């Protein structure tokens, strides 16, 4: 087991694309760290640099105390699970799992023992003699994970391992990976574009965009206090509602005076002028102890059973309100909306959209 330290890491491709722009990270021993962000944000490139599959343009990567920038991938004591599984098609499942150990000259009895253990842990003992093409998608992913764990590496790298599985299998494998991590306690770096995976699996989440880290924190901390508008819009489903407007006279006024939200005692510390108000759908509530905000008519109601997602129009743009499932909500109904205390997120109106409160 080991820590992973990344210092001021850059990746610039020959054609000039600056994929990773100065990333620094400290990953604790045994931590499950999730790199998440939209496609092209540099998360996979970062992972591939840790794996040794991409050259580091500048900066430093250490596993434990060892700088591994120029160490061959096979000598880094890492194992990686690929998005497309990357199983060796000409080898059986057993040979796939044993391949890495064989290349390192591990004695045969030891290989057999480790493959058997890993196969048992993943319930794939009955598949050992088969070829990858005879397996289903879920089974292939298990084999790919098995190939990684037999190596007993210092660090596991996962590159979007679940994105090729169907929804049901993904939920199942997600729980299995969490269990596996608890049992093995190995350091994990996990790349995904799926915020649900990030929220459920990670000890900490690193949210990236345009090659830069936007925020590093525990999942709930990121959810509750997003550092900027990008983070706020990326984490959470349905996404946070944003209302452009201004902070004026101790209140937030939605553009065109469509609505007004008193900001209470916080207002004094906030800069006056243009800003963006962010409210999560579940904090935009119909009644109760909420601070009154506006009234709006339901345009579309999506009934999910346990809740209804009501789409309403405020200040000319569409927003989503979560209405409890036992409450009637149909198109045409007028809702008087309030914002739950603590549910107010204020961001700067510029492109960066830094958090103000």
């Amino acid at each position, binding site marked *: 087991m080991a820590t992973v330290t990344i210092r001021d890491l850059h990746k610039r491709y020959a054609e000039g694309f600056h994929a990773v722009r100065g990333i620094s990270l400290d990953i604790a021993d045994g931590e499950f760290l999730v790199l998440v962000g939209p496609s092209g944000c540099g998360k996979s490139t970062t992972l591939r640099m840790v794996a040794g599959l991409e050259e580091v343009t500048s900066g430093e990567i250490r596993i434990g105390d060892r700088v591994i920038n120029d160490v061959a991938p096979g000598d880094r004591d890492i194992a990686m699970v690929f998005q497309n599984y990357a199983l060796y098609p000409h080898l059986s499942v057993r040979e796939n799992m044993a391949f890495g150990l064989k290349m390192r000259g591990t004695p045969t009895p030891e290989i057999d023992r480790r493959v058997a253990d890993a196969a048992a842990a993943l319930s794939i003992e009955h598949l050992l003699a088969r070829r*990858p093409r005879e397996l289903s998608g879920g089974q292939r992913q298990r084999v790919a994970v098995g190939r990684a764990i037999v190596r007993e590496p210092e660090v596991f790298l996962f590159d979007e391992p679940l994105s090729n599985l169907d929804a049901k299998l993904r939920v199942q494998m997600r729980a299995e990976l969490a269990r596996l991590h608890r049992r093995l306690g190995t350091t994990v770096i996990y790349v995904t574009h799926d915020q649900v995976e990030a929220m459920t699996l990670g000890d900490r989440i690193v949210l990236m965009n345009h090659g830069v880290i936007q925020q590093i924190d525990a999942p709930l901390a990121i959810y509750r206090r997003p550092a900027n508008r990008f983070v706020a819009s990326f984490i959470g489903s349905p996404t946070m509602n944003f209302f452009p407007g201004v902070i004026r006279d101790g209140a937030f006024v939605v553009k065109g005076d469509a609505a007004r939200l008193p900001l209470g005692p916080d207002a004094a510390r906030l800069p006056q002028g243009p800003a963006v108000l962010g409210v999560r759908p579940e904090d935009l509530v119909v009644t109760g102890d909420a601070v009154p905000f506006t009234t709006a008519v339901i345009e579309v109601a999506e009934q999910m059973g346990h809740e209804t997602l009501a789409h309403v129009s405020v200040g000319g743009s569409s927003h989503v309100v979560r209405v409890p499932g036992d409450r009637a909500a149909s198109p045409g109904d007028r809702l008087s909306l309030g914002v739950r205390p603590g549910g107010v997120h204020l961001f700067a109106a510029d492109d960066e959209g830094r958090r103000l409160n």
Partner: protein
Amino acid sequence: MKEPLRITLLRHAVLLLFVAISLYPVLNVVSISLRPGDRLRSTDLAIIPPDWTFESYVKLFTQQPFLRWLGNSLVVSGVVTLTGVALASTAGYAFSRFRFIGRKATMLAILTTQMFPATMLLLPLYVLIAKLGLVDTWLGLMVFYTATALPFCVWQMKGFYDTIPASLEEAARIDGCSRAQAFWHVVLPLATPGLVITALFSFMTAWSEYIVAAQVMQDESMFTLPLGIKGFQASLSSQWGLYAAASILVSIPVVAVFLAFSKYLVNGLTVGSVKE
């Protein structure tokens, strides 16, 4: 869906016609090789003549240096096949996986050599071989054949490697392989169909070639099979029996090699490795 009877009949009729067209010359040659003497023409329609004999075959081995030519051809074709496979498999890999200066230009240059008919290259290549002192040597032929077969083989291998996902090699490298080991343990086994095509193509190029061999080889004991066989067709009296018998024997190794390799020609070896 069941096919109407007349369509089935029509299809079989067309197929039979083509089978007849391809088999007729072969059967004719078989027939000639079995006739006593040098009867090229015969009014007899029997494939196996009533007075059939293996005389021509026996003569080939006892009175003609057929075995020697066979050996020559095997050596030349074998070496050309081995070099072709070795060079095409590595060069194709480089073109497929590495981005180096001059990559596109080199690939185009290789392709361009394919635009000239071999006969046009005959003279310059002969001059080259003569200057290198390789006239009347196996090496001369091998160089010539390898040079003509390689361009196609390199492109063919490159195309084949392009279909092998890069993540397989990356997985191998993380599993502890060097680049070369990943190539050997993972890429090459998956490229078997490509290698087989390369091997077959190189072998055939060398095995059945006549024009170049006729220029490079002058000593009869160094002749390859096509050269030797052509010798039976003299201006005054052609030894058609020997000619036919030798032709049959020459085609046997090609057919055998093809049959032996054809099971590797199945595509889709990489099915199941990665999810597209």
